[in-house]
């Protein structure tokens, strides 16, 4: 197959559907959910019903699964609606993807049908650690057979999860432990965040036995998929800022003309567009590699680095283009900037990502 960037008809149709949903449902819900510091159950259910956040194979009662490129297209569109809600809903469903790709037959038969129900499953995949570089090798959380011990941050749904997956290191490499119900771990504290508030997260301490997922390349690709979710959301977040700022630049006037007529503004708009395309292409490339079972941690780190850089840049410039109006909450750009910087904590290029990209080139 030759180099190609054309989405399939199904992907285009999904993108259009989700775009409309984002405009009609997520945009109006964004501020209320942020203020309530949670995604309302109604909104969560509506996104869940779209079938893209927790895909379940038909044999387990679901609407079928799709590849990682499609997932990234969908995640960008949802995040364009609202990054916080997108983070909550995508993050709550992604355990289904890990189970579907890496679970054994028993896990799939027993756990996947839950995600096919109309009611979303409060679940999580816990990865992030405060002291780790972010790559698989430097995870501190230790897994020994079915036991896991370690601390994670940014864990969704930890207070009432009925299913959770913890990623850690086994003596042989990457491992993951599944917990059912919320025994086996302690919520150290709820995180009171400056952004992504519609996605309440927790610091969690794990020290107990659960069920181990089979280790191997499948698990590795599945975990990389969960990490790439951050990058895909970041692209949508960046695009939200960009489109809002671009529209504003054609409407707001200063010195007798639209501010977009001034190159101090228009060149920023151009740079935002460049960063977004560069980021999206990096994310798609990593997703395409995951679909081929060939992705490395460096591929995903590269994509996330590019996407988080785009989100922070567009978030900042989005506020800057609007000036004082950008800083007040009447406009959404200040929120997207806070969301972007919060997201960037999950895989910051300068504090890890770029380093293991470099390490990969010496391999």
């Amino acid at each position, binding site marked *: *197959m*030759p180099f190609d960037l*054309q989405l*399939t008809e199904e992907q285009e149709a999904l993108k259009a559907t989700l775009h409309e949903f984002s405009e009609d449902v997520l945009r109006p819900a964004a501020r209320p959910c942020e203020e309530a510091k949670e995604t309302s159950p109604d909104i969560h259910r509506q996104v869940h019903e779209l079938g893209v956040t927790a895909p379940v194979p038909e044999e387990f009662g679901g609407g079928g699964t799709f590849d990682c490129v499609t997932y990234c297209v969908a995640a960008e569109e949802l995040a364009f609606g609202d990054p916080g809600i997108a983070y909550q809903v995508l993050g709550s469903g992604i355990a289904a993807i890990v189970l579907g790709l890496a679970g054994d037959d028993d896990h799939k038969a027993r756990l996947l049908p839950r995600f096919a129900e109309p009611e979303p499953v409060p679940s999580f995949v816990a990865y992030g650690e405060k002291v780790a570089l972010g790559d698989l090798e430097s995870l501190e959380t230790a897994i020994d057979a079915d036991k896991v011990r370690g601390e994670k941050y940014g864990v969704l749904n930890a207070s009432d999860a009925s299913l959770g997956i913890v990623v850690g290191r086994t003596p042989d490499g990457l491992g993951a432990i599944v917990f059912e119900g919320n025994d086996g771990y302690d919520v150290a504290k709820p995180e009171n965040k400056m952004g992504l508030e519609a996605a309440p997260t927790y610091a969690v301490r794990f020290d107990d036995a659960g069920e181990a997922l089979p280790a191997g390349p499948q698990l590795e690709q599945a975990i990389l998929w969960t990490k790439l979710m951050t990058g895909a959301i970041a692209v949508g977040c960046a695009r939200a800022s960009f489109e809002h700022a671009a529209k504003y*630049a054609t409407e707001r006037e200063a010195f007798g003309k639209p501010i977009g*007529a001034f190159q101090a503004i228009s060149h920023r708009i151009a740079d935002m567009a460049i960063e977004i395309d560069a980021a999206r292409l990096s994310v798609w*490339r990593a997703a395409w590699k995951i679909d081929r079972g060939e992705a490395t941690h460096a591929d995903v780190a590269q994509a996330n680095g590019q996407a988080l850089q785009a989100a922070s840049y567009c978030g900042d410039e989005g506020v800057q283009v609007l000036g004082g109006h950008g800083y007040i909450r009447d406009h959404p750009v200040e929120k997207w900037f806070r969301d972007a910087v919060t997201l960037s904590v999950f895989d910051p*290029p300068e504090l890890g990502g*770029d380093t293991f990209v*470099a390490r990969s080139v010496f391999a």
Partner: protein
Amino acid sequence: MTVDFEIDENLAFVRDYVRAFARDTLRPLAREADEKGKLPTETIKQLGTFAGNRASIMPEENKGNGEKRSSIAAMMAVIGSEELAWGDPAVVLNIPGPGLAAPSIRAAGTPEQQKRFLDDIFNVDSGEPRFGALAVTEPQAGSDVSNVQTTAVQDGDEWVLNGTKMYCTNGARAEIVVVNATVDKSLGRQGQKFFVIEKGAPGFKVGKIEKKMGLTASETAELILDDCRIPFDNILGGAEALEPKGSGFKGTMKAFDSSRPSVAAMALGIGRAAFEYARDWVSSELPMNTSFPRKAAIEQKLGRMKRELDAARGLVWQAAWMADNKIPNSKEASMAKAYAPPAGLRACIGAIQIMGPEGYSKEHLVEKWFRDIKVYDIFEGTGQIQRVVISRKILGRLD
């Protein structure tokens, strides 16, 4: 019809072939060419023989006039350009061929002109290296091409051209130079037409050869048109070009939309050369007692270099893929051209810093690549101009 980042075997073959040529032939010539500011005539001849003394060693991008354009021509151009520039960006410009004269003649020339100026000169085995050139820039007119002052006045069956062109690559040794000149000042840019000046035309003089920061082995000439006389038939598009709807400036310049991804690809190739050089230096030469913080910083810098270069390649390939699929790509071509040169420049500066005193030393090529790459953010449309193009596509015209 689905997202796929793997290039097909034809492109992979071209890439590997050009990569080997760049590594074995171009790269070894780089330092001496830079120091002397030129290549030995014999070497240029050899490069010409290799390239078949025609447009380039890659398939021509746009045959124009009905000849079917290959559906991977633009991808092939960017992939080949990256590899060639990786070998050496200045030596590449010494490969004989019509250079930038080709796209303008292909875009606006009559079939007779295409035969006379391209096929008869470049697609024959003359045994001698032959160059073509394009001269647009003038001392007072860079990005603002509408400010071009060179005039062309008809005098019987001849044109008389007056003006000064500058920054013309291979202009002094070219068999043909394509220039734009105003036939009717009141029409603004639409009053500008393109003309072909043949070597030896009366009143055609070579001014100074520029001394540059980089790309020193590439000849950059000032051209003086002092009552320069050329046949009437040398106006591109023939007499029809003078009609109100004749081949205007804008239409001809459109031919260069296709060159922006390739120029971006060259910057990417230079940046990649610097990145790989620094990477290899770090694995074999990094002093054992390098402090931990410095090692960590080096790793981070190398990672960022690779990340940004890969992102640049994404933008370059996106623009080329769109061209090959006949999707309008003016915005995306400018995005690639705006992003790749600064990303490549950062890679060059990063490589110099990582290597420290060996980085700025002329014993290694990274200092040369830094000097070479800077101009990629300037020629063929500055970074600022690319942002004007991009923002106009997004915002519309607001001024």
